[in-house]
Structures are given as structure tokens and as C-alpha cells.
């Protein structure tokens, strides 16, 4: 077996040192009733690298690859070009096969990269501090809601109707058990964001107002008035960003007054991966840092006075505080955070802004073209690289039909909100730098075909 270095001679010799006659002697504590005598049913014995690769390739080829077709799916995960050096660097064994930096003297590579990551995230979000990552955007969103509850000592969070429905679903699942109260609503298929409803609903019991920016339909709202009203009522503004590239083009949530900003970092450096692993981003105002969940990397000095980095403020965390910890999170998304950071380093300020401008320009051009398809209207007044079309019939079967024609034409609101008939004709379309004019034309033709 190519992965197991011990030879039978080694095993015999080592059993002798241990004082055991056979390997079974080392499993004596296992009750006889639980000792498995036979092999696991149906599982073949070990296989060659070639055979396993062949089997896995067989499964892989049963999927339609995003990069092989005109592709317009977003809604929380985005297909961007990832520079080749990103994957090369994260496959360095010293990054790939290391772990949480518990011994900082021999983990400065990971720690410095995390410190740089935290700085990049904080600056991108317009916040003072950021942590070393969460599992993904949806779990980061729930952690932000509970953190706002700890800060305000209130239990009622107001969720924008523009928040990704899966994020809402995750929060609702958790709130059932924690006793938090969530006020939610389904979005309306129109150009206005949920800002007016939120402004009217904030009161003295609100712990957090949770707003996605841009929202699930792609619309962009000024967050400043919401921040102002929230703060006047002693509530926090939590902003959720599912497409970080947008922040190269639009104002950061922090500069508009957000207290906690969380989101999905997948779009930068991490592939689509059918939904995971992704990387949750988490940033906030410095005054709330001791209520933050997750690992934090901080700067310090070593015994010779040289600058170095360590994990810090761990008295918030489960391995020290146990049941009093701010979260139960342990392992996070280290390697995806590194991929995010490497890609962001390659982009830099200049590259991110150009990338954002390119995404926006391509999206505007695509929206104009698609709005000329007979019967199709553009719902949004504002958007970044994702917008919603209203079709003259239900979008969900249309998406399926287009897929059969080899076009992945977007996400139907019917799939995301199956219970909301008023949204059934909505189609969310994402356009990135990877989208070509030919792709847009193919989508326009496919839409014409399925709507005819």
C-alpha cells in the first residue's frame, strides 16, 4: 500500500518493543461485540492511483463544467478568472500541509499571511479589524447576528428582504435554538431595495439590521441612512457582501457606518467547487473585537526583539473558554483565506478597481442587450455585476431548457424562493470578466428560443 511505510518486518519488530503478540492485543479495550471481524461490505481492497483517478474522472465528466459553456450563474458564488500563480502557491507543501499555527516560531509563514489577509479584508470592508476567516459567508452572517446580540444584549434582528435566502435559512435554523427573533420578508421584484421597510422597522429592541450589499437581486442601496437610524436606536448595522469584487467599484460598508461586515470571499482566489470550501470574511469596529468569533492573528516581538506574529485574544475561544466562548469555531478556512490573499495581492488596489470596472461595464452591456429580448425587462435601476430580469413566463423551466441548449443562463428566483409566486418570473444573471460578447449573444438567443 503506497501510503503506508511500515513493512511487515517493522510491524513484527515494533510489536516486540510494545510487548504485544499481535495487533489485536492493542485493541483489547474494544468490547468483543464491537470488534469488526470482516471487511467493510462492498468496499474493494486498495486500488492503484490510475484506477482511482479513472473512477473519479468518470464522476467528474458527468457534470457540466461552467467554463465550457456560456455561464451566468451567481447568487452567492461567482466565477472569476484566478491567476495561475494562486493555485501554485497554495499548493506549496509548507502551506498545504501545515496546521493552525499553535507553535508560532515555526509558523510565521502562515501567521504573516493571515496578518496580511486580515489587513486586506479590513481595508476592503472599510473596517478597523478583521479575523482570520470563517467557514463561509452564510455562517459568518449568523455569527455576526449573534455577536450583535452579545454587544447590544438584545435578541431581535431585522433581516433585509435582499439577504440571500440561504443565509436567511441558516439564520432561521440557528435562531430556533437560541431564542433569537428574526424579522424577515421576501423581496419584491422591483427596482427598489428594502431600505424603506428597514428604516420603518428599526426600534429600540432591534439588535442588528442585516443588509446585503449589493442585494440578492443585485440592487445597491446607500447604507448611511440605515446606519444612522440603527445607531440612533442602539442597534448595530451588519452588512453582508457576497461579491467582494463589487467593493472595488462601490463605497465600502464601513465608510457608510457599518459596525460588522461579513461576507463570502470565494469570488477572489477560490473556485466554484460546487459550494465549498469557501471562505467567510468577518470584520468589525475595533471596539467590538473582544466579542468577535474565530481566530485572530496579532503582531508582537520575539525574545530578540524581532517582529513576529501569533494567534491572539484566544480567551474568546473554545479551547480556553470552553462553554463561555464567543463561538465554537476551531478549524476555519485557512487555505482558502490564503488563496484570497494571494489573488488580492496580485490584483492590488489598481487591479481590483480595474477588475471591478470591467465586471460592471460588461454587466451593463449585457443587461442592455438582454433587455432587448422581446418580453424581457430589466428589474434593476442599480447593480454591479449581477442583475435581475423579469421574463414573460416562469424562469425556472426556462433555466432548465436553456441548460439543455448548453447555456447556464442564471438562477431563477423560483429555485431560491419556491413559495413566492410573485417572484417566479425573475432570473438573476451574473456577468464577470470571464463573460464574452458571444456568451451574452448565446444567452440572448437562448432566451428568445425558450420564450418564443
Amino acid at each position, binding site marked *: 500500500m503506497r501510503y503506508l511505510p511500515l513493512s511487515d518486518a517493522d510491524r513484527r519488530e515494533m510489536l516486540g518493543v510494545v510487548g504485544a503478540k499481535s495487533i489485536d492485543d492493542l485493541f483489547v479495550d474494544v468490547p468483543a461485540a464491537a470488534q469488526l471481524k470482516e471487511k467493510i461490505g462492498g468496499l474493494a481492497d486498495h486500488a492503484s492511483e490510475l484506477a482511482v483517478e479513472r473512477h473519479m474522472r468518470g464522476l467528474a465528466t458527468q457534470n457540466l463544467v461552467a467554463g465550457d459553456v456560456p455561464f451566468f450563474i451567481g447568487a452567492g458564488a461567482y466565477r472569476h478568472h484566478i491567476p495561475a500563480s494562486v493555485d501554485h502557491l497554495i499548493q506549496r507543501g509548507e502551506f498545504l500541509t501545515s496546521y493552525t499555527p499553535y507553535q508560532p516560531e515555526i509558523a510565521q509563514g502562515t501567521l504573516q499571511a493571515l496578518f496580511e489577509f486580515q489587513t486586506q479584508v479590513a481595508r476592503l470592508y472599510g473596517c478597523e479589524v478583521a479575523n482570520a476567516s470563517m467557514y463561509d459567508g452564510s455562517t459568518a452572517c449568523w455569527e455576526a447576528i449573534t455577536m450583535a446580540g452579545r454587544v447590544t444584549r438584545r435578541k431581535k434582528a431585522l433581516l433585509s428582504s435582499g439577504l440571500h435566502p*440561504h443565509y436567511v435559512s441558516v439564520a432561521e435554523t440557528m435562531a430556533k435554538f437560541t431564542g433569537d427573533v428574526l424579522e424577515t420578508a421576501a423581496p419584491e421584484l422591483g427596482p427598489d431595495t428594502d431600505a424603506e421597510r428597514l428604516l420603518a422597522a428599526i426600534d429600540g429592541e432591534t439588535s442588528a439590521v442585516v443588509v446585503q450589499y449589493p442585494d440578492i437581486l443585485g440592487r445597491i442601496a446607500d447604507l448611511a441612512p440605515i446606519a444612522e437610524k440603527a445607531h440612533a436606536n442602539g442597534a448595530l448595522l451588519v452588512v453582508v457582501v457576497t461579491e467582494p469584487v463589487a467593493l472595488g467599484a462601490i463605497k465600502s460598508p464601513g465608510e457608510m457606518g457599518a459596525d460588522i461586515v461579513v461576507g463570502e470571499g470565494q469570488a477572489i482566489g477560490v473556485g466554484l467547487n460546487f459550494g465549498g470550501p469557501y471562505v467567510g470574511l468577518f470584520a468589525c469596529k475595533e471596539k467590538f473585537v473582544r466579542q468577535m468569533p474565530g481566530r485572530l492573528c496579532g503582531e508582537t516581538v520575539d525574545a530578540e526583539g524581532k517582529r513576529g506574529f501569533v494567534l491572539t485574544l484566544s480567551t474568546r475561544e473554545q479551547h480556553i473558554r470552553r462553554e463561555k466562548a464567543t463561538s465554537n469555531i476551531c478549524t476555519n478556512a485557512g487555505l482558502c483565506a490564503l488563496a484570497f490573499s494571494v489573488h488580492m495581492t496580485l490584483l492590488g488596489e489598481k487591479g481590483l478597481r480595474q477588475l471591478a*470596472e470591467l465586471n460592471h461595464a460588461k454587466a451593463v452591456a449585457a443587461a442592455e442587450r438582454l433587455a432587448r429580448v422581446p418580453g424581457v425587462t430589466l428589474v434593476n435601476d442599480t447593480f454591479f455585476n449581477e442583475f435581475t430580469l423579469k421574463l414573460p413566463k416562469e424562469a425556472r423551466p426556462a433555466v432548465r431548457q436553456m441548460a439543455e441548449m448548453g447555456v447556464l443562463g442564471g438562477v431563477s428566483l423560483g429555485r431560491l424562493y419556491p413559495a413566492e409566486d410573485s417572484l417566479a418570473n425573475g432570473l438573476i444573471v451574473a456577468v464577470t470578466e470571464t463573460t464574452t460578447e458571444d456568451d451574452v449573444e448565446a444567452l440572448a438567443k437562448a432566451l428568445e428560443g425558450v420564450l418564443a
Partner: protein
Amino acid sequence: MTINASGWRPEMGEAGTGEATTFTGNRALMLEEALLFEIGDTQTTGVDLDAKPAVKSRLGGLERNREIGLAGLTEPQTVRHYTRLSRQNYAIDLGLFPLGSCTMKHNPRLNEKVARMPGFADVHPLQPIDTVQGALGVIAELGEWLIKLTGMHSVAMSPKAGAHGELCGLLAIRSALEARGDAREVILVPESAHGTNPATAAFAGYRVENIPATERGRVDVAALKARLGPDVAAVMITNPNTCGLFEPDMIEISKAVHEAGGLVYCDGANFNAIVGRVRPGDLGIDAMHINLHKTFSTPHGGGGPGAGPVVFSEALTPFAPLPFVEAKDGHYVLVEEETAGEHHASSFGRMTAFNGQMGMFTRALTYILSHGADGLRQVAEDAVLNANYVLRSLDNVLDAPFGASGPCMHEALFSDKGFGEGLSTLDLAKALIDEGFHPMTMYFPLVVHGAMLIEPTETESKAALDQFIGALRSVAQRAKAGDASLKAAPIHAPRRRLDETQAARKPVLVYKAPVQAQAAE
């Protein structure tokens, strides 16, 4: 035996501080690297982008007009920056990484190749179901093996890491109890448990009470039974436990908990010790998470991503989270909120936006198929043999608090008993760094003073173990002899000991340029 193969000599401890300095601060292959924000700037980029079409902005007047402050580097600078940083890390690829309970084993590279196949890596979670049959097939196939390997009834694949899996298990338990109108408030957790166990129980809305351990390093079954009652929702037990020992009374414990109306959660962090030899389902448990990054060797990546699927007993299956994959007429479907009502109405809901850690699923499935039934059993046996070999090769120089109670499983536990005055586990660990090894897990489990938990894993050769044992024997002897030079270790690492107190007292969590700090509002 050549213990000091690395060339370490005690007198070098003195020489370390007075070492000749270099102009750069570098020492040959040990290269210093400045921060990104000190070497990059906002005008430099490592990407070239296509031209954009001319359009009218639709950003609604919210165009960004402030600098973000993101430093950029060209590609050669970027590659060098991260390559230089990487060389300041210890890693499994460099040597034995005996971090107890973390299971740092070799990561097969076929797994990396497979995970990067476009058919897995370049597929969107919201694609039409007909276009992702292979992805759903991976989830279904891996799930089936996890069920068979554990002898359980069903599996929830979406949890993102071990602690997320614990949460999944406890939410299912709470849902099951509430469904029978039997809300309970307390979760019992052994003293030796991972910190995530009590933290998860609290996160799920429970009160946590500790169960003591016996002198043999096992759960005190009498104390546990005495505490069981109508307020106890569940016990969370790690088996093999965090002392590296199998809980021989597990079947009896499960039975007692069930008789008292509670449920049994098993922390599966140490499943790698028994995979292929013991099925947790035969021990009477109701839920267990499986850290794919431990047992099935998906890379630890400097702190994740992990994956924490949870296997359930029949009693808990109806409460499992959404979404999940189901085979229907030779076709896979994804059961989500929309269709759950038809036959999965008791599900406690969704834990994460999409379908779980697909990139880990492909790797874990590849690992399982590569090893096969014989190989997986051998994994457990070699892991246990290697740990016992370490235990018995060192128990005459280091105190093994449970060494007398029989063999250990996949990890060997020692204490700091007998160390010279003023010397601690930390000092021994730092000295191991100078020997070229990553230290073991320190000060955990909490039930042993100055605990050192060593998990060698099955992917270490006998020669590698012998070298490690020699190094540890050497530093242990120095610790027992009261060698104060240990306090200075490590002296050969990229950094000497770091001041953690200063880091926590005045946290500096992001880079601030000196000039910018002065100009701050």
C-alpha cells in the same frame, strides 16, 4: 543511536544569542520577508485585464471615491513573497508533525489532482440538477461509505468542519427531544473533552456539566450514571478519548443514557484510530461527526478548510439538516426546503448556504477508494502500533500517566512529572523545534498536568519514529536534569519565543503604516 543527527550541541545554546549578524538579517536559506504592505503599493498590479466596453454607470451614485489601501505586487514579486513566507512554516511534507488529536498525516497528491478536475472544481452549486449529477454522485458515494464504515443509519454531509458537525449533531438531538415533547437542558461532557464540545453545547442553547475521569483516564461511569436524569439531553463523548484511550464501557454508557431518555453524541475526531476495525454504530451512539481532514487526510491547509459530515442513528435521521442528496429512479436529486416537506418535514433546517465542502468530499472519496477495505483497516492498525511504539519507547524517561492501564490507541500521552525545577512542557516542546520537529499537542487534555499528546499517525516510517524518539528522549533527559538552557529554545527557528502577552494586551491585528497612524483622524 545517533541522537544528535541534527548537529545540536548544548554549547550552541550560548552561542545562539551572540550569533554574527548579517546586513539583511537573512541567514543563508533562512530568509526574512517584509510585510506585503511594506513592499507593495496601490499602483502595482500582477494582473493584466481586457479592455472594458464603454457604458454608463449603474452604481447609483455609490461609486467608491476613497482609496482602499490594497498593496499590489507583480507576479514575480508575489511568487517570491509567498514562497519566502512558506519557508518559515513547518509542515508534514518536511517531517513528523505529532500534534495529538489533529491527525497530521501525509496528504496523498492524487487527492489534490482529483479535486482540481474541472468537473468538480468549476461547477456552481446552483446549476440545474441535471448538470451536476456527477457532483451529487460524489456526495452520495462518499456518504454511503461513511455510513458503512461507521455502521450508522444516515449521514448529513453539509457541516463545514468538526465543530460545525458537533453543532449539527446537537441540533438534531435537541430537535428529536423537542419533537417528543421532552425538552431537556443539560449536556454532560467529560473533563477531558475538546473545548469545542462544551462551546458547541452552549452554542446550541444547552447548559454544560462535566463528568470526571477515572485514574485510568476513562469516563467515570459510576459518576456519569449517577448524574443521568430527566434533565440530561445527551452526553458528548470522544472515543477513542482525548487521552488516546478507548472507552471500554462505551456500550454500557450508551445503554444507560438511552434508558434515562437521553442521547449519545460521539466526537469522531479520533475515528482514524478505529476505522475499518470498529464501527461506532455498534457502540450504541446516536450521532458522530467525522473530520474528513483527519481520518481521510484532506489537507489541513494552515487551519482549514475542514469538513465535518455527521452520521446518525435511525432515531435521529428524520431530524438531519438540509440539503441532502437522494437517489430517485437512477437520478440524484437535492432535497432542499422546497421538497423537504414531502418526506423530511422534521429536518432542523439548513446549516450552510450550499452543499458542504465538495472539495473535501472528492479528496476523501479518493482516499477511501485508494486505501480500500484492507488499507483502511491497516491505517488504523499502523496508527495504533506507531503510537504504542512511541509510548513504550519513552515511558522509561517520560511519565506516562495512563501507561499502566494498557495499550493506547492512536496517540500517546505523557506528563511533565519529574522535570527539573522551573522547566515545563512548553520548554520541552520548544526544544523539539530546535531538533527539527513540530511539537506535540501541549497542555491538552486538561486532566493531565503539563500534558503532551503525541499522535505520530500511520504515514510515518519506523526510521522517522526512531529519530523522533531519539530527539524526544534527549530533550526529556535534559528537562529532567534541570538543563536551564531549554528556557532559551528555540534558538534555530526563524523566530525565538514570541511575546504572547504583549500581543494580547495591545492587539495589533492589521497593518498600519507609521505615517498613516500619525495622520489618523
